[in-house]
């Protein structure tokens, strides 16, 4: 194999984090002193204890792969499997704890929406700012400016501060800037989850164009149909190691198998007092109120959200996003959709809220909830994902006639025979 055509060559890459480090966010000197004293005391008591094994975990371990020029690789895996950490290592944001990698070519990242945008600046100004942040030169931006504007379809609002943009415009602009970076290696982390269908299609088209120019794409997504459309190769990560590396179809199939193992009726999270609100528990209950992860398609499904409000709040909401295991976004909903009174004042304390999905809608499959606490205007306090739950199709009509039906919904429709006229008898 020609050595030159390998653009990413990773050997035994590993990344270790301290347990709790991410949740604790940052330390205060006082905590550090307390911790220091505690660890000194414990070391006096257990002089030979190995602190590494106790306080650290590997987010990624022994990751080895080679990626060739022009390949499109989908990196898939459950939340916490190490996908984003891998991308961070490749882009240089964090450093590995073990192993090494050689990267040939400029690496560009398609950023999460709005990272590097300043709300007070106009669209025009943000194109330059964002371009510079992701590594473009001014001459390069000048040259591509018109392309970026027309791709983003924002020419009328070019001199409006982006804080007045709709979220759709925001996303389009962010993608447009990054898509014109023309790096040798493009990293795409879950950006296509946003924007309308037409724009998503346009983005995928743009990325296919990138591939035709001989560039390489690493694509992280939960949207399996997008991954399948764009990628030829899939790397499946599971608990920080490569579980599968090969054809994208096989990788996706294995991914869904892994998702099935992650079925549970309840997931508990640690409260994060550094945020105004944080989710502490997500669970699913059936009509009888019992916790379960298995539902018949006729049953209603209640999601129970336990959360804490750490500081008094106004005008905050709970948003629920229902995803199918293959990444299909089924439903987005929020706690005031029903005209439920806006909760003006939220005192500090522990809360439990429930939302019920009526039965007889979802087709069989594996699903899970993403729950977001925040404000309508893009402020997010916390986001947590539940374990998967399974819906089993118990309808007689689907079983008897078709066996298993495809499609996201199992919705018996109302049928009316509205006209009848017998043929004239031919005599």
């Amino acid at each position, binding site marked *: 194999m020609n050595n030159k055509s390998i653009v990413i060559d990773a050997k035994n890459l590993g990344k270790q984090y301290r347990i709790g*480090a991410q949740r604790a966010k940052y330390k205060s000197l006082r905590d550090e002193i307390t911790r220091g004293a505690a660890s000194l005391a414990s070391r006096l008591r257990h002089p030979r204890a190995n602190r590494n094994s106790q306080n650290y975990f590997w987010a990624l371990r022994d990751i080895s792969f080679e990626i060739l020029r022009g390949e499109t690789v989908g990196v898939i895996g459950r939340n916490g499997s190490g996908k984003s950490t891998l991308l961070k290592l490749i882009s240089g944001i964090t450093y590995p704890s073990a192993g090494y990698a050689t990267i040939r070519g400029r690496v560009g990242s398609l950023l999460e929406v709005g990272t590097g945008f300043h709300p007070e600046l106009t669209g025009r100004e943000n194109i330059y700012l964002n371009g510079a942040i992701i590594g473009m030169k001014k001459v390069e931006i000048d040259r591509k400016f018109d392309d970026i504007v027309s791709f983003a379809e924002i020419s009328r609002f070019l001199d409006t501060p982006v804080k007045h943009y709709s979220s759709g415009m925001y996303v389009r602009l962010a993608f447009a800037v990054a898509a014109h970076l023309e790096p040798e290696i493009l990293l795409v982390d879950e950006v296509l989850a946003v924007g309308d269908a037409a724009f998503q299609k346009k983005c995928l088209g743009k990325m296919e164009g990138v591939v035709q120019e001989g560039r390489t794409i690493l694509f992280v997504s939960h949207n399996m149909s997008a991954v399948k459309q764009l990628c030829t190769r899939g790397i499946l990560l599971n608990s920080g190691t490569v579980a599968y590396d090969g054809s994208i179809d096989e990788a996706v199939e294995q991914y869904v198998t892994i998702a099935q193992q992650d079925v549970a009726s309840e997931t508990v999270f640690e409260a994060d007092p550094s945020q105004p609100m944080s989710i502490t528990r997500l669970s699913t209950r059936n009509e009888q109120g019992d916790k379960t992860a298995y539902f018949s398609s006729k049953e209603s499904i209640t999601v129970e959200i336990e959360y804490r409000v750490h500081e008094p709040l106004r005008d905050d909401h709970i948003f629920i996003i229902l995803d199918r295991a293959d990444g299909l976004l089924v439903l987005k909903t929020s706690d005031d959709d029903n005209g439920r009174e806006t909760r003006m004042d939220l005192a500090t304390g522990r809360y439990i809220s429930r939302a019920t999905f009526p039965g007889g809608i979802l087709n069989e499959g594996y699903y899970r909830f993403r729950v977001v606490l925040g404000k309508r205007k893009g402020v997010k306090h916390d986001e947590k994902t539940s374990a998967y739950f399974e819906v089993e199709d118990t309808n007689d009509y689907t079983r008897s006639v078709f066996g298993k039906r495809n499609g996201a919904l199992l919705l018996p429709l109302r049928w009316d025979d509205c006209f009848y006229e017998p043929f004239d008898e031919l005599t």
Partner: protein
Amino acid sequence: MNEKLPVDGRIPVRYIKPVKGWVAIDVRELWVYRELIYYFVWRDIKVRYKQTGLGIAWAVLQPFMTMVVFTIIFGNFARIPSYDLPYPVFSFTALVPWTFFANGLQNAASSLVSNANLLTKVYFPRLIMPMSAVVGGVIDFVLAFGMLLLLMLVYQITPTANVLWLPVFLLLALVSALAVGLWLAAVNVQYRDVRYTLPFLVQLWFFATPITYPSSLVPEIWRPLYSLNPMVTVIEGFRWALLGTNTPPAPEIVLLSSLSALVLLVTGMFYFRRMEATFADVI
């Protein structure tokens, strides 16, 4: 990070490996990213006075109003000597570089934490953030300096030829702000205690600098320690260069000040580089 951006179609190669211990400062990479410094400075200036009624006038008003208060309290009530200069000019000449230093220091110290979302999403040399935070203060300085010239005109003070030294003193202020800013920015990522210590530190530093009083008031035996503060040289230098006080900062004071600023800068840079690998993980 050993990144070389494309030059003449050559493909840059980067090696990713664990970092341990001290890391060299990659001047080449900083040079490659120099435009980003410009854009961060430009962003901060554009945004700083948005949605304020008086806008950029604040750059002048802040030190000016402080000067008015000082003139009343220290000039009129306490009758602090001021090299026989009108107290408003005496204190404003000091407040202009001091404001530049103090704002630069504080902005640099919080630069990483306030840009945390960028830090965890994009790669660029992290040194750029505190650097552009300090450099961004230059515009405010220029405006306040214009006000200072106006004030001198009012009091009919003409600068001497020493004024040519002014850029040197400004550079010393910039280096000092960056040096301390680097230290604090890196520590701030790990320990948010910096946020609470900072106002106190700046206040303490303010009184350890001859802003409201001339440095001649400091007892002789304390002078060497006193001149470890680079801002002593900056302030006295400004007065000497602009107002023609016939007491130029003594050579040994200038030397000590510059040396301490330089030591702080070099150690700050290395400490920053050493901590850089962990920024995205702990911020």
